[in-house]
């Protein structure tokens, strides 16, 4: 299934894009808004929430980064990037006006269509789940098309919570519940303390009209999905975003394999019933 139009018949070709806005979200997180330089390429570029681009820094390399902006404004490509290693650290030093390379969009995104009319339970754990943030934004921009939105977000320590204001903003919206938890306590932490799966006991979910979107460590997701299945949720209405090493984004380099799947094109978002046998298994 081809989700979006890819702009080139040479899938290795990169397209220059200029940084038109840059915001330092945290010491190790930047937000970049990119605009493709070639107007023709820009016009043809269409994406879905949860899809990703390969971002290139000349002479350094390429990395997979989710697109978090709104697909209805595809001329702006927003990326939230955590500066962790060789390529991302160089990206972090780029200023407004500088040029990056883009290939994409790649992969299967979140089930925004399948979830329309349903309640959506978003569960995230661990550090910055950029891809799921894009999906939440997408729903709030089309609030009436979705039922109740419940967001469960777990971090290890209170310092790991980024986007605190965005969670507060969502919490204030009608028909929306936000639950935060930290494994460890902290002075300023007035939310729950414990692992994210404990939050399930506090949320009511209607198994017949809920779609789940989940992102985080595989072990956490395995436990969480087990609990939800137990509460009657259908595996084919639960989706997870997965991570493996990615180098090509087009199913050719072999790195992103997870069992029989290439996460770069069968994923990164996968329906639970397809991926369950492999999820959280060692050595996969």
């Amino acid at each position, binding site marked *: 299934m081809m989700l979006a139009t890819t702009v080139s018949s040479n899938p290795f070709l990169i397209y220059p894009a200029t940084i038109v806005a840059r915001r330092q979200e945290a010491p190790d997180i930047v937000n970049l808004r990119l605009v493709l330089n070639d107007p023709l390429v820009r016009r043809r570029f269409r994406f879905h929430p949860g899809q990703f681009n390969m971002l*290139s820094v000349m002479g350094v390399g390429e990395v997979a980064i989710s697109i978090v902006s709104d697909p209805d404004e595809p001329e702006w490509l927003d990326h939230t990037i955590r500066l962790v290693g060789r390529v991302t650290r160089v990206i972090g030093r780029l200023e407004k006006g500088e040029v990056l390379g883009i290939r994409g969009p790649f992969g299967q995104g979140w089930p925004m269509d399948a979830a329309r009319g349903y309640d959506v339970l978003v569960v995230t754990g661990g550090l910055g789940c950029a891809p799921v943030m894009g999906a939440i934004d997408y729903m709030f921009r089309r609030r009436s098309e979705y039922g109740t939105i419940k967001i469960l977000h777990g971090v290890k320590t209170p310092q790991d919570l980024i986007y605190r204001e965005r969670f507060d903003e969502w919490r204030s919206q009608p028909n929306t519940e936000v639950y935060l938890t930290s494994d460890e306590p902290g002075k300023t932490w007035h939310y729950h303390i414990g692992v994210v799966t404990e939050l399930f006991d506090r949320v009511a979910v209607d198994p017949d009209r809920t779609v789940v979107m989940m992102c985080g460590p595989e072990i956490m997701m395995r436990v969480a999905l087990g609990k939800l299945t137990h509460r009657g949720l259908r595996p084919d209405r639960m989706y997870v975003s997965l991570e493996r090493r990615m*180098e090509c984004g087009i199913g050719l380099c072999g*790195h992103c394999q997870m069992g029989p799947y290439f996460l770069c094109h069968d994923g990164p978002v996968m329906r639970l019933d397809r991926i369950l046998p492999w999820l959280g298994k060692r050595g996969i």
Partner: protein
Amino acid sequence: MTNAIPQILPKSGFPRLIEALRAHHYRIVGPVVRDGALHWDEIAGVEDLPIGWQDTQQPGQYRLERTETTTWFGIVHGPDSIKRLTFVPREPLLTIERKAKKVTVTPQMPEPTPTALLGVRACDVAGLLVHDRIFLQGRYADPYYQVRRDALLVIAVNCTRAHKTCFCASMGTGPRAQSGYDLALTEFEDEFLVSVGSEKGREIIELLELPSASPAYQRQEQERIDACAASQVRGLQEQHRLPQGLYEVHEHPRWETVAHRCLACANCTMVCPTCFCHTVEDHPDLSHTRNERVRLWDSCFTPQHGMIHGKNFRPTIADRYRMWLTHKLASWIDQFGVSGCVGCGRCLTWCPVGIDLTEELHALMRENVDQATP
């Protein structure tokens, strides 16, 4: 087309085939002996072929020797599969140039000379077809592979002698080349039987106006190939239980046992005609204004293959061996509709410690049956 009656090409007339190929502007790449092994290289004519040479192969062993025979294609194969002609070990993909804030990207499309590959074994032809599925028939076609593939004319040689490491018969890929070749030869003492496998092949062979082989001759050819198949001592068993059977033995203790022997040297993946993993690197010039992006062969046996920031999904050799075997023999079927193994036996021969994947699969699956039926 492949059903057409094979023709007889006397060895004395072989230079005419070479001329015909040249007339079609092909350079000829064939098997040559170098550094004690067989490699693919350009040949000027018949005199460059390793006439009279033979190889012996065993798990962990490869030996070449000159014999009394005058066999032209007596060496079955060497460490190089033909994949290095289409999926080259180092492929420049792009040039990226930066002047001030302007970035220019230029694809580095290869411009290969049309090449007639002479002496390709059935297993390697099958390997090429596997790569066609991966690089040309998937969601994204690889234009670099495509260009190189289009420049290739495949002249196969059907096998009449197998090694202890060969198991193409059990994989259904040989000893006779099944499809995907342009011409196929079967060697006799003084002549070859030539079968046509494509229109391109027909155009070449028509120039030679060769006589057809009699039915008796064709029978003799089949007998030689059948005898080769019958002589194969190895086979991949329990194929009907794949892929699922291998997924089910994820926790089998055998993975640890084989990991004690495996050196994670990646030889098996380098010699394998179907392994396609690659990595992409940027090679900037000193001034950092011009950068070449290249694709290089990679292997799932390297520590980086399963590594992301802060985590390695396959930290142990057992994990990597399981990845390799499970991909080759099981998940490949889910991904591409065929096995990732064509039975060439190279990974047995070129494994420094002689690990045999047929034996490993057998051990994994047999013991699983035992467990399943208490």
